[in-house]
């Protein structure tokens, strides 16, 4: 085992793709959570109206 510049350069692709990939997935989850919160609010409003 020793310094391997070729492997380092090849790994940069995974570094960039991997870190960017997490941001993309987190972004999708954020949108879903905001959608869930709105859906839950509407559901609660409906149930409150029904109760009235």
């Amino acid at each position: 085992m020793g310094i391997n510049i070729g492997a380092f350069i090849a790994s940069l692709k995974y570094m960039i793709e991997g870190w960017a990939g997490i941001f993309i997935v987190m972004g999708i989850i954020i949108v879903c959570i905001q959608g869930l919160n709105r859906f839950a609010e509407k559901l609660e409003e409906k149930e409150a109206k029904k109760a009235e």
Partner: protein
Amino acid sequence: MTQIFGNFADLTVQMVVMWAIGAIMIYLAIKKEMEPTLLLPMGFGCILCNMPNSGMVHTLEILFQAGVDNELFPLLLFIGIGAMIDFGPLLADPKLLLFGAAAQFGIFFTLSMASLLGFELRDAASIAIIGAADGPTSIFVAQTLKSNYTAAIIVAAYSYMALVPIVQPFCIKLVTTKEERMIKMEYAPGKIAKTTRILFPIVVSAIASLVAPDSAALVGFLMFGNLLRECGVLRSLSECAQNQLANLVSLLLGLTVAVRMQAESFLVPETLMILGLGLIAFMFDTFGGVFFGKVINLFSKKKINPMIGAAGISAFPMSSRVIAKMARDEDPYNFILMQAAGANVAGQVASVIAGGLILAMIGPLV
């Protein structure tokens, strides 16, 4: 007499060194209360597995094949962890997920550093996942990629998780000013509907499984535990997951992993390199999270305390408490615990997703 003392002839210096390492782990677990759930059984197992011709090795190997080699133990542990987590602060402010993402930078940076130092890709990726600051994820990824250094990786992961109160403050003070650490943040707790709490684990599991199918088990078991907690109709199962299941698996896991801490495979130069790379992973996780906070402040009118970026690692709840304490040390009226806790649970989700992405990218190549 030969039968009684003959075994001493097989004792080596390396075995004695491993006894010392086991003793240090037990000391840290008991006296310093550093991750005792794992370090104590690992330390004890390490000592017994490094006795000449030890019968312990055969027994622990059975447990290893039953629960670690097939990644079962870490997945079962994740059910318990999921049942313990309250995602409320995250659901109230979902943008905190981005801090979770930012604080996984150390994983990918360490992947490159480990490759530079000559580790095979499977080992570089397994070493990098130490930066997930999550024991089960580290074990799962290392075992799935069939890394040659599972034991060293696990020891590093759990040791650095216990060292978060030392590593993170040092790193944060290196890259932030006092003024930045004193930034106050408002906290407006939103009420999270039960429907959201129930649907969140299902939605996250679905998304993670679609994006990175290899992470389906990791994310799925974590979110299943959370669903047990949030559904409200399975209190006994949730309590069992948080207590009996988590404790039982932790007990077996620590002892079992020690079978890979035998001197001939553990006392190699690569182990020291792995410990060094693990530290780099944690440090750059912290740097990544803090710098993300600083970048947000460049564009946002409402300033955020960049330290909460550092809470985006998965070491829950220790990291959020460390960050909150640092804020109060600078200003006794600066309370950022809830924001840090939100970033901390975001880190739990992000670290598992990171593990899945590592498996998706590297798995097919090894």
